[in-house]
């Protein structure tokens, strides 16, 4: 306790860690010090002067956002002198502010409004014309700038300098005509640009896609999980009276997103609002017509039962379905329909069913989690371009590089965004992955060597804590077993207990793998044996359907269809009896025989498992469109129609069954998942045994 600092703020004593800023110490006591330029994730600059406080013994008022605590300090945040300064500062900020709150998207959740209401002057004393700028300016695809509202806190510019290092916006001019603008010749198209909307304490930066989404007092918030990639970023779904999703907002979870959100996730919610299936449908005389739930279910069940147990049925389930839905699909496919051809992807990158996270564990790495990056001094990325594959994790790596001067070794066929920050770019011909990893392992073991590999190896042969990140694209290698062997060599060369994080493509790919939505693997990562061993992978299913070897397809969610060659998909779907279960027909090129209306993630409860195995809950935000239903309920109905009853009446009950089936989830208590999720345990199934189709 001796290294804590004791000080007094407004008569209350507090002990806090040294180097804590005064504004943070005050917050620990529950004392509100208004701030604009201060943000806990950005370096302090002390520009807005809102947070001035009085420290006894100091002649001037002191900005609390730049002053660290000192032993014995006596601070006043609420006396007349401080309050006058605050009022004065707000008056300065407001003299040129347009006060167009009624049409401002920030109105209602605006710190400038809130502090003006709490501390500010009631009337203006400024009698002159205000500053005018053209507005709004579209400075990027997703960002609108209103310079009149800007208070020059520079949070946006600092975010682009310190966090994303996409320096596309900056400050121009000086003094009273100072303004934010884009760097000449560039627009603000950083894939993290949306974060500046959240950072902006006024309505100067607003989202173009969410412009005039509604007023904040009409908006309800529901915690959820982003479905954009496998990072599992926590989000807040903002919706109007449970009707439309109007906006996604970040929700900090240090295990996944660290408080940020990429634009792909932030603005990628349109599929929830548009082109939605409202009714179950059946194909009649070449026309899709609305049908009752009963009619459609019976028809689908009859198709499924016709092809059950005969090897002529294929099942594709989207990796953005919830664990509960995937578990239900797996149950019906394997247990009821006795079918082993089931997959979550039809991408050519996954021709063989591999559990990458198990492969790296077998190779000798520790199962890594994203927060391992925060501890590492050396980061090795293998076969992954994080700015495409998982943008938020790229920010986490950048944080390690910028704030802790961590070093990076990148293995990828081309220069990646993160390659800017390292000399150790090991660029190779696609297909050479195994040999590059093996040569790096050999060089690390010998402590160096020639060329780029040698330099990287010299770096990695030190004792510094390391983290390895491997990408899902490696799964597609034809010599996968060679790569697995090379990873094993690398693991032993880097030393014990090096965490390895596997990057998967979709928000629930990891869940799909854990739940057996892949041929040759049963729930829990148990290798299939016997008759179910010989299932086809996604791309094989489509090819077999095209060639007439499969007679029926059950597709749940259209994502697998988008990954394959469109011609193949068209030919395959036209050639079989086709049951489609999903939320939109937009991506389905052939009219299905039966359409079952599924809800999206925004309308149901359930869980997702992110790339490092963290199980996180989603909550229903908006009402289901029309008669659409959660997938596991549709599947339960199909089961009943096929004469098999599945005992589950709530998502919690389904999850309990998943816990029984998947050892890695067995320790997870439903009540503890909450809004921030729980890490699933590391079960130890074999990694490569079993069929590869």
């Amino acid at each position, binding site marked *: 306790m001796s290294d804590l600092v004791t000080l007094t703020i407004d008569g209350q004593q507090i002990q806090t860690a040294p180097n804590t800023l005064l504004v943070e110490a005050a917050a620990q006591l529950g004392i509100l010090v208004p701030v604009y330029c201060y943000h806990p994730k950005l370096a302090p600059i002390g*520009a807005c002067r809102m947070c001035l406080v009085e420290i006894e013994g100091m002649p001037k008022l002191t900005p609390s956002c730049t002053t660290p605590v000192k032993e014995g300090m006596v601070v006043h945040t609420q006396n007349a002198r401080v309050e006058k300064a605050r009022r004065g500062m707000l*008056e300065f900020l407001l003299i040129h502010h347009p006060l167009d709150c009624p049409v401002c998207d920030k109105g209602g959740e605006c710190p400038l409004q809130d502090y003006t209401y709490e501390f500010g002057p009631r009337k203006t004393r400024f009698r002159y014309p205000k500053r005018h700028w053209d507005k709004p300016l579209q400075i990027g695809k997703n960002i609108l700038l209103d310079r009149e509202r800007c208070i020059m806190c520079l949070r946006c510019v600092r975010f682009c300098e310190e966090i994303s290092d996409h320096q596309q916006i900056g400050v121009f001019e000086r003094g009273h005509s*100072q303004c934010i603008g884009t760097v000449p010749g560039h627009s603000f198209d950083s894939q993290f640009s949306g974060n500046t909307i959240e950072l902006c304490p006024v309505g100067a930066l607003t989202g173009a896609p969410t412009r005039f989404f509604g007023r904040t007092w009409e908006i309800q918030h529901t915690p959820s999980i982003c479905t954009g990639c496998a990072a599992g970023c926590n989000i807040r779904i903002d919706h109007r009276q449970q009707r439309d999703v109007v906006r996604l907002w970040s929700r900090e979870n240090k295990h996944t997103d660290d408080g940020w959100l990429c634009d792909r996730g932030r603005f990628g919610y349109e599929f929830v609002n548009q082109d939605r299936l409202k009714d179950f449908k059946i194909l009649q005389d070449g026309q899709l017509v609305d049908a009752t739930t009963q009619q459609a279910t019976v028809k689908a069940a009859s198709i499924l039962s016709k092809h059950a147990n005969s090897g002529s049925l294929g099942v594709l389930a989207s990796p953005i379905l919830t664990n509960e839905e995937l578990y239900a699909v797996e149950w019906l496919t394997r247990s009821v329909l006795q079918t082993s051809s089931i997959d979550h992807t039809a991408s050519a990158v996954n021709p063989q069913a591999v559990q990458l996270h198990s492969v790296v564990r077998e190779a000798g790495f520790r199962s890594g989690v994203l927060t391992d990056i925060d501890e590492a001094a050396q980061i090795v990325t293998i076969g992954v371009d994080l700015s495409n594959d998982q943008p938020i994790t790229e920010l986490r790596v950048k944080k390690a590089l910028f704030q802790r001067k961590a070093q990076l070794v990148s293995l990828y066929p081309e220069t990646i965004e993160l390659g800017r920050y390292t000399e150790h770019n090991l660029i190779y011909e696609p297909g050479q992955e195994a040999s590059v990893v093996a040569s790096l392992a050999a060089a690390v073991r010998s402590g160096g060597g020639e060329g780029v590999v040698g330099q990287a190896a010299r770096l990695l042969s030190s004792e510094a804590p390391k983290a390895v990140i491997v990408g899902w694209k490696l799964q597609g290698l034809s010599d996968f077993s060679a790569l697995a062997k090379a990873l094993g060599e690398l693991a032993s060369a880097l030393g014990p207990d090096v965490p390895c994080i596997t990057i998967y493509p979709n928000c629930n790919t990891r869940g799909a793998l854990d739940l057996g939505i892949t041929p040759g693997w049963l729930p829990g990562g148990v290798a299939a044996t016997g008759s179910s061993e010989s299932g086809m992978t996604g791309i094989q299913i489509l090819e077999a359907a095209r060639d007439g070897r499969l007679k029926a397809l059950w597709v749940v969610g259209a994502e697998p269809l988008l990954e394959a060659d469109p011609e193949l998909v068209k030919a395959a779907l036209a050639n079989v009896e086709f049951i489609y279960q999903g939320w939109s027909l937009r991506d389905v090129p052939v009219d299905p025989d039966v359409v079952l209306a599924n809800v999206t993630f925004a309308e149901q409860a359930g869980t997702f498992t992110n790339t490092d195995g963290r199980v996180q809950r989603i909550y229903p935000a908006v009402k289901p469109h029309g008669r659409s239903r959660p997938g596991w309920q549709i599947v339960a109905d199909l089961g009943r129609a096929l004469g098999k009853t599945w005992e589950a009446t709530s998502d919690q009950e389904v999850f309990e069954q998943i816990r029984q089936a998947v050892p890695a989830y067995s320790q997870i208590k439903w009540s503890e998942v909450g809004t921030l999720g729980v890490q699933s345990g590391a079960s130890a199934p074999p990694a490569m045994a079993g069929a590869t189709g």
Partner: protein
Amino acid sequence: MANEIVFSRNHIDNVKDLDVYVGNGGYSSLQKGLTMAPDELIELVKASGLRGRGGAGFPTGMKWSFVPKDTSKPHYLVCNADESEPGTFKDRQLMEVNPHQLLEGMILACHAIGAKTGFIYIRGEFVGPIQIVSRAIEQAYARGYLGKNIQGTGVDVDLAVHPGAGAYIWGEESALLNSLEGQRGLPRLKPPFPAVSGLYASPTIINNVETLANISHIVNNGADWFKQWGTERSAGTKVVSISGHVNRPGNYEVPLATPMMTLINEFAGGVRDGHKLKAVIPGGSSVPILPAEKCDINYDYESIQAAGSMLGSAGMIVMDETTCMVGVARNLVHFYRHESCGKCTPCREGTDWMFKILNELELTGGQMDDIDLLLDITDNMDGKCFCPLGDTSIMSVVSGIEHWRHEFEEHVRNGGCQQRAQNGH
């Protein structure tokens, strides 16, 4: 008794040429100074009582001693020649007439603080001084006064000129460092102070031109010689730039504690004919204005402070009774409004608002409440700005209203400035 130290060679024809300078005792301090231990040199400057001549008046030796001894980083010396204060024009003459004196001082200062590199950051508008100092550096390199092993003493010093790009704020030392690094010239957070983490995050000392020009003389003649001028706490001489309503405006090097009226009446030849003194800005535009009745003081740091103003950078602006004090405030606030960097709220918005009010007072009169509103705005800015620019921008307004409130009120009553109307503006 004038022109004793930094102007002592100004009368020599073409002293900016190296040969002439050396022929008149120039660079003679190097042998002595560079063979002294750096600590000895710092102690010598401390003992001389030399205070920074840029405006703040911080003891120079003390500043040098703040440089950490145990860093692996390089040390830097930066000469602040970004002289932009309205009313101050001494550094320009020091560089134009006698650039080698500055270089000599910088070489010694570099040795004292352990710096191998020094930068002379010259205001971009000073095209002449930039050329002259650059030429002097070339000459000094050619003759071995700069570069490796200066005059066989084993000391290496490199100097370079960096022209500014036109902003008053770069006279603020941390903004100057940002500008020198190629960044936007905004003031930095302190601490860390530049002596610990300055240019390129390395220990850096920033001194004014006049401060550095004094060094060679102190080394040559000793601390006691230097202290024969001035007072105990304001030692040495000071170049005072006198401008305004006087008969002979110009730079005058005088011992500190010379009576201010002597400066005006003897050196500057008195207030212009037929007029009498109304007010003096004693230390450049950033200090409060003194009314004539308070001008009977000695010109040193302490006396001026006691009278309610500051010596600052010694840019003395003399005003006679024809001067409109609202106009003065308007003029100066216009300057600060234009030069505010915009980083902090009170300076960015406060200077703009003050100018709008003063402009209205001057042109159309405004309202009687505006005078108290002005005072309230200055109170909201005072001590709350990020750097001294904002804090000092209010000086002319505060002291103007304090001493000449009736003039502000007349402006309101008359619907603007009578003088301006008479002069047909």
